[in-house]
């Protein structure tokens, strides 16, 4: 069962490395971002193959099973990434709104009768 999970996790990590390279080739992410993602997913593969390396951390945080530690770690990572993405979207939304509104005010069309009012 554990082996099956490990194989799935490794395949998933390899797929994510492929996506990182693909997006880099399409120039959608920088080389730095591509390298960062590759390192993260290689680390994931190493932890999946050698989970015992986390044993010390599990003891430090008083978590009895390594799997629990990985699940908790995964949750923290996902929450962090969702929050970061949310903040970025909010900032982007504000920029788009400001641009659209500014453009509308600049390109106003005026009718002839309004000049007489």
């Amino acid at each position: 069962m554990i082996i099956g999970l490990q194989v799935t996790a490794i395949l998933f990590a390899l797929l994510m490395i492929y996506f990182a390279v693909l997006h880099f080739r399409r120039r959608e992410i920088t080389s730095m971002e591509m390298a960062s993602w590759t390192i993260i997913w290689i680390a994931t593969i190493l932890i999946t193959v050698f989970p015992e390396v986390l044993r010390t951390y599990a003891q430090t945080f008083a978590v009895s099973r390594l799997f629990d530690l990985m699940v908790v770690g995964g949750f923290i990572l996902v929450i962090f990434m969702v929050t970061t993405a949310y903040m970025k979207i909010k900032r982007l939304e504000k920029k788009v709104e400001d641009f659209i509104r500014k453009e509308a005010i600049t390109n106003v069309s005026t009718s002839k009768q309004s000049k007489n009012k």
Partner: protein
Amino acid sequence: MKIAIIIPAYNEEDRIGETLKGLLKIGLPMVVVDDGSKDRTSLVAQKHADYFLKHRINMGKGSAMKTGAEFAFKNGFEAVIYFDADGQHSTEDLSKFIDKLNDGYEIILGTRTYSYDVPLVRYIGNKFASLLVSLLFGLYVSDLICGFRALTKNAYKQIIWESKGYGVETEMAVRISKTKLKMCEVPVKTIYLDSVKGVTLLDAFNILFQVFKWRIEI
């Protein structure tokens, strides 16, 4: 007082023409803000509007209202009256807003009364929202989501909202509660034409969530 009527519009090709023709009789300058309509709203509106502004993409009613107000106040108007593009408001009620503005009121909120064909579900939902806002912010507004309202330049500066969508009217009320602006309500007629457009149940839940968020933020 120099007043402009602001008409935010989104996909209103069928009704905006009649609405603007009705408003022409009033004689006040009309500012139409087309919020990225995909139909012929722009073509119809440009025939009648004194000033026509267009959002390249749909941003929501709150954004369109803000664009209209900023344009009007930058161009020397001292007050604005918001009027929905779908013809659900009566032009006869405009004089009430103009009179109140001339009397020195800075914010005038239109209030739809039950006798004027407001559907029961909306009426109950609206009253619940009014009570909730009253409890949380200490200001009772009889009709929180009525789009027929007026405000002066000074009032706008004090209550600039962040809402892009239908939460804008409620946010305005919340922000009013934090100011000392001279405010009043006037009864208005409302003609319900479309059950799909306007504030949906989903919007209502979203606004409810926002109300709690504003309690913390504002």
